[in-house]
């Protein structure tokens, strides 16, 4: 009986131990399942078709091409692989330019026939039509089977999830925004982080260290939304005035806030690394006549190189995944940034800002999960590389 209970408890403990692994598995499963739905979604709004003239050699249009056509950025079929022929864009509401209201019918019952006729007689036409108005014997080409391609997502340069008729789910502006903000943050916080780590590990007295450590722990404990709020009411107006900007919500504001948030991680990891330097190495250096400072930069810092690298990588990881603070201070403009003084939008901020308004199961919803996958993959790569870096010991 006693042995049975022992075994039972051990089993229960093992099951508890497996919860984290199961969670990771489930995260992968659910994120990728929802994300893969994106590539089954039509490029144009559901329930609509694009109709072309029969003589038009163009058989498919990508999501981005459709958007450019509707924004009048592409005006000739030869730009999308067709003949030299101006594009004639017709929406359902434009039908009245071609037919009188009597011809269309009081209940619009003639629209299917007229739409078919219009498509057949205009060689350059592209007609954007709800599916219910497509006649049984439609005289033209219907583009309605195209789905969003991985290239549209991974290579897409625009993120306009609500643009009609073709929503744009381009990853690039968000990915670049995330990288800009995170790199800016790490460039600001790494020098401070290493300096504080050196100070704590080597220079400060025990008494000062006992005061500084809890302060840094406290810095790590402040919720990100409080950092965001502080950034919003202090850092954003400050940057706006200093650089004389139209808006203060910029990539730089995000970087500054993230730099503060990444500091505790960097300091703790780098300091731990410096404390593992064997006493004998330090003493050997001092005995050879090197000053304390020479010992620090010739012995201690090189010896703890891998630890400092881990600290930097973990800091970047923290910055890339941070959501609320960045959402509140970066201005959230989904455009590819050129300087740090422009508004940007990061991947986590996009998810947080848009998931609430995306209909469950729609293309937008799927696209946000795809962003989640990207984020998950990036952080996994970071976790693995930290594991790899810290397993490598100093050998020289």
């Amino acid at each position, binding site marked *: 009986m006693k042995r049975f209970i022992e075994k039972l408890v051990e089993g229960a403990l093992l099951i508890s131990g497996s919860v984290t692994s199961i*969670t*990771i598995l489930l995260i992968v499963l659910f*994120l990728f399942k929802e994300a893969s739905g994106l590539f089954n979604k039509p490029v144009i709004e559901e329930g609509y078709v694009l109709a072309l003239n029969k003589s038009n050699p163009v058989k498919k249009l990508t999501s981005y091409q459709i958007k450019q056509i509707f924004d009048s950025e592409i005006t000739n079929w030869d730009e999308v692989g067709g003949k030299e022929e101006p594009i004639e864009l017709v929406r359902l509401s434009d039908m009245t330019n071609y037919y009188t209201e009597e011809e269309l019918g009081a209940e619009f019952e003639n629209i299917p026939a007229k739409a078919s006729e219009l498509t057949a007689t205009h060689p350059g036409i592209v007609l954007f039509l709800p599916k219910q108005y497509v006649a049984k014997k439609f005289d033209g080409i219907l583009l309605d089977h195209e789905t969003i391609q991985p290239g549209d997502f991974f290579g897409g340069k625009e993120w306009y999830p609500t643009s009609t008729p073709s929503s744009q789910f381009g990853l690039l502006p968000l990915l670049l925004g995330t990288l800009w903000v995170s790199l800016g943050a790490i460039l600001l916080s790494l020098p401070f982080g290493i*300096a504080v780590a050196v100070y704590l590990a080597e220079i400060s007295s025990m008494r000062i260290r006992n005061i500084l450590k809890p302060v840094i722990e406290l810095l790590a*404990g402040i919720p990100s939304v409080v950092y965001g709020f502080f950034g919003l009411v202090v850092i954003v107006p400050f940057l706006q005035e200093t650089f004389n900007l139209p808006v203060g919500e910029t990539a730089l504001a995000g970087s500054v806030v993230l730099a503060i948030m990444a500091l505790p991680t960097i300091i703790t990891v780098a300091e731990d690394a410096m404390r593992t330097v064997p006493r004998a190495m330090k003493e050997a250096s001092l005995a050879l006549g090197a000053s304390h400072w020479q010992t*620090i930069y010739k012995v201690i810092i090189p010896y703890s190189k891998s630890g400092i690298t881990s600290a930097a990588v973990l800091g970047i990881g923290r910055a890339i*995944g941070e959501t609320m603070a960045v959402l509140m201070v970066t201005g959230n403009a989904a455009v590819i940034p050129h300087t740090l003084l422009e508004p940007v939008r990061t991947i986590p901020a996009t998810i947080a800002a848009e998931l609430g308004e995306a209909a469950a199961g729609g293309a937008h919803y799927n696209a946000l999960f795809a962003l989640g996958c990207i984020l998950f993959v990036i952080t*996994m790569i970071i976790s693995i590389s930290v594991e790899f870096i810290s397993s490598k010991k100093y050998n020289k």
Partner: protein
Amino acid sequence: MTPVINANNSDNKKRWSQAIAFTIFKMMSYAVVAILFLILGFIVTKGIGVISWDFLTLAPEEGMTKGGIFPAIMGTIYLVLGSSLFSFPIGIMSGIYMNEYAKGNKVATFIRIMTNNLSGVPSVVFGLFGMSLFVNTMGFGDSILAGSLTLGLLSLPLVIRTTEESLKAIDQSYREGSLALGATKLQTIRKVVLPMAFPNIITGLILSIGRVSGETAPILFTVAAYFLPKLPTSIFDQVMALPYHLYVISTSGTDVEASRGIAYGTALVLIVIVLLVNLLANALRTYFSKKVKTN
């Protein structure tokens, strides 16, 4: 003569460069401390005027520009309790398994790697996952249950790690002594190991409460309500929560400028929670470490 002078010169140079470098490091360290006090000082001075008994015990009024934050405080308490009910038992049990049953073997290493990976997952991904699994697939809807489970998973790595560290710190001889007296493994863990590790474990648990109470991204889509003056009646209800409340009224409330005061007050309450949690954790650590020593 010359070599001596050179030696003096390089000695001087050495001393100077050391003095300069150390001063810079010291100043940078104090700058970091100054940043913390700048943030704390700013929010405390702006928020202290807002805090009153009414602010803490009334519901928001007039488009959240007046009134208090009572529902948000209660919501955060519910979420902390709910997530703790989930993460504490599981986290402590996996910590025990890793250190007492599978110490050093492949299973423990595997669990450790997975736990580290989970702790690196951004909180917004937990939000997505919680929404997909708990809210939609399991059909809990936006509810305390879904939010608590999501937050529980998020804090699980922290609980596991502190439990494992606390157990690791206990000398092997105590276990051997207990086993030698004829106690079973389970008895040893219950009567010897856990009581000794308890102070450190409890410190970790309190810190994880601090973490959970400030998280926003995981609750955005799993539980948080924009405005809900009455308290929840079941675990399938939505609640307001402090961090989400702060986010909403400082960015997208009906009148951002008019609710600034409330925002400062909410930020102050959040910071006070974090401070209290840290102080409590430190106090418990010292208290218990003294007690264990005298025993």
